């Protein structure tokens, strides 16, 4: 699957780019183990950070952005190796589809230099470093409350039943006291449309929102840190509970990363079944998004019709795995269970039904005048979407054709025929419509795969994990794996050590998407702001980790 026909010219271009990078930065660029398929990863160990190297650091990234066209910063993660701290920056060049991992060693300086002025997505990612790891970023905006979990771990014997008083949060003071019409309003975190995702503080008058501050961490549970103390066999259990939208992509990506690390191949039938499961999860995720948005905007009949469609997907899950969420169905090398007799027929019938119902719901909603008025607000241009590091349907709604299923096809995605729906100006309307179309494309994929389902086994019972770990234990490379999940690029950056993990980081699309929100709502009304928040499709658990 590594030689993909359409990508030959692209890989030539990326060779040129790689050579240019070598010529410019010379010995600092080392090839790493992360090359896979059409994707290039190069890592470099940069200088230890000192005061006088700040300018050098910034000019290095400036050059990468301006001269080498790395327009997207998708991820920053912090790795701790003993006393050493290493920051990994993930960059994408969209023209050649070239990915770069820049690793920077830092020492205990007072600050790490911020990159907010180069990529807007850096603001949110650096805020995360501050909140979760206690690093200070120069020119960063400090968060109001750090979400470290240390304080929570008190002794269990102190547990006392009854009502306790805890400190309350105070709204920021209005900057200009003379302007009495502007006030801070607080939305969330518990109230209805937000549902524990975030707290939004709006500086607004009756017409406009002037400023918006976002506070996250209400579902933070120290996921990444927790995984470092767990044996590898247990991680899959937790990955199922990473995201509340669906429990398919996260465990799948973990199993894939292990397969990549231990060099295990997946059987043909399992590949096909995994594709079907991924598309089913996409359908489910998008359906629940549509249901929430239509319900919030007052289209209650359509909303309850969509709930019925979600139940249909649950029915399919149930027939194969026996559960409707948190199913432990994936394993290293394939699937745990084969498809039951007649499942494929049932599935084809169900998706046909979903397609028909969705068409009728779509025709009722999108031509509706009030729907058009309610969702016409909050546009986003393609450039600013790229700057904020959006991926998935939110990026495609702005008109950028970027889908990992096309750019980096795995399994049989290069063989099936499907299109990537694009929006025009990134309004809530477009974001809705792109998702509706994506459901239809997913149904198309499921139909094609189930028509040509390969025969054979779904897993390899002879895989000896102990043996494989022993073989792999002499090297400790960084492994990066990513997938086009329902809402965008979900990624894992990890380093295994013996039977445990020494570094584990999740690139969650929701966290990155959230930070374009304040830009999205400025100058619009508060009522539109809440529907715009829903239209970004943010998942609380995946975001906070």
């Amino acid at each position, binding site marked *: 699957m590594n030689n993909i026909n359409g990508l030959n010219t692209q890989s030539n271009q990326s060779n040129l780019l790689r050579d240019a990078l070598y010529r410019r930065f010379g010995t600092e660029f080392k090839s790493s183990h992360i090359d896979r398929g059409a994707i290039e990863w190069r890592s470099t160990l940069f200088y230890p950070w000192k005061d006088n190297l700040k300018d050098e650091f910034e000019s290095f990234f400036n050059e990468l952005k301006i001269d080498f066209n790395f327009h997207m910063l998708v991820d920053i993660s912090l790795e701790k190796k003993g006393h050493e701290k290493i920051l990994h920056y993930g960059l994408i060049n969209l023209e050649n589809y070239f990915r770069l991992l820049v690793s920077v060693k830092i020492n205990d300086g007072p600050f790490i230099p911020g990159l907010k002025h180069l990529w807007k997505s850096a603001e949110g990612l650096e805020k995360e470093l501050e909140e979760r790891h206690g690093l200070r970023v120069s020119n960063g905006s400090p968060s109001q*409350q750090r*979400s470290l*979990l240390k*304080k*929570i*771990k008190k002794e269990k014997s102190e*547990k*006392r*039943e*009854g*009502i*306790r*008083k*805890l*400190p*309350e*949060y105070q709204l920021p003071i209005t900057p200009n006291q003379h302007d009495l019409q502007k006030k801070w309003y607080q939305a969330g*975190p*518990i109230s*209805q449309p937000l*549902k*524990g*995702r975030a707290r939004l503080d709006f500086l607004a008058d009756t017409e406009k929102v002037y400023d918006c501050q976002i506070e996250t*961490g*209400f*579902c*933070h*549970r*120290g*996921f990444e840190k*927790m995984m470092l103390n767990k044996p590898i066999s247990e991680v899959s259990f937790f990955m199922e*509970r990473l995201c*509340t939208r669906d*429990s398919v992509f996260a465990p799948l990506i973990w199993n894939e990363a292990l397969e990549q690390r231990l060099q295990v191949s997946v059987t043909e039938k399992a590949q096909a079944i995994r594709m079907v499961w991924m598309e089913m999860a996409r359908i489910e995720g998008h359906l*629940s998004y549509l249901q929430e948005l239509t319900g919030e905007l007052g289209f209650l009949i359509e909303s*309850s019709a969509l*709930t*019925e469609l*979600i*139940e249909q997907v649950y029915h399919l899950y149930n027939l194969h795995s026996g559960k409707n*969420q*948190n199913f432990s169905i994936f394993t290293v090398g394939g699937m745990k269970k084969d498809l039951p007799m007649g499942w494929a027929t049932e599935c084809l019938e169900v998706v046909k039904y979903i397609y028909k119902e969705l068409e009728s719901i779509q025709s009722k909603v999108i031509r509706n005048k009030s729907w058009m008025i309610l969702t016409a607000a909050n546009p986003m241009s393609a450039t600013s979407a790229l700057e904020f590091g959006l991926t998935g349907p939110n990026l495609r709604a702005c008109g950028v054709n970027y889908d990992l299923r096309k750019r980096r096809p795995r399994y049989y995605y290069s063989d099936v025929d499907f299109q990537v729906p694009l929006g025009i100006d990134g309004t809530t309307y477009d974001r809705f419509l792109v998702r509706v179309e994506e459901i239809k494309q997913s149904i198309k994929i499921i139909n094609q795969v189930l028509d040509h389902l390969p025969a054979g086994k779904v897993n390899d019972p002879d895989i000896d994990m102990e043996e494989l770990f022993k073989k792999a234990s002499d090297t400790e490379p960084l492994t990066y794996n990513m997938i086009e999940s329902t809402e965008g690029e979900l990624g894992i950056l990890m380093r295994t050590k013996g039977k445990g993990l020494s570094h584990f980081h999740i690139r969650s699309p929701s966290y990155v998407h959230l930070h374009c929100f304040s830009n999205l709502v400025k100058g619009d009304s508060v009522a539109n702001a809440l529907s715009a928040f829903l239209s970004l499709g943010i998942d*609380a*658990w995946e975001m906070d980790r």
Partner: protein
Amino acid sequence: MSKSSKKSNSSSMEKNEDLSQLEGIAQVANGRSLFSKIKSWSRSQLLAPFTVGAGCCAREIMRLEGPNPQSHFIRERFNHERVEYCDILIVSGVINEKLSPYILRVYEKMMEPKYCVAVGTCSATGAIFDTMAIDELIPVDVYIPGCPPSMDALVGGIEILRSKVAKGESRAELLKLQANQPPEEASL
């Protein structure tokens, strides 16, 4: 038992003075007035729940409203807009230090008598991600175990809650009574 229930009687009489005569007439053998019985029975027939939490269990709770075959047992809407009109708090998912003040604020705003249901292992014990349990914050009436709980467990839990509401056995009220009692009586 009889002592505490008599106390609750007297306190309710102080509250509604105009109803005190009626309640006196309707005194029945086990210490609760017929009037308060009717009140709590009618409350049990239309629960007013407010859901908190954004975990995988929340998805399961929302299914209770949907077209699922078991959900015809439940007649409630699960997302009321006003907290002030609700008397049942349904908590699911992870609760951490940052979220807990907001849960308390919601709980304080709710109508009395207050009931609380903890759905799923996360909120009941905090065991899965090593976080807070909801009973460290507020008294809980019904625990529904499971990760996530099955549909039958959820429906069963709501039915248990309904019978508790019908009897007027709120744990929060009980704790309040115990706190008000002099120490030697409390030991009984």
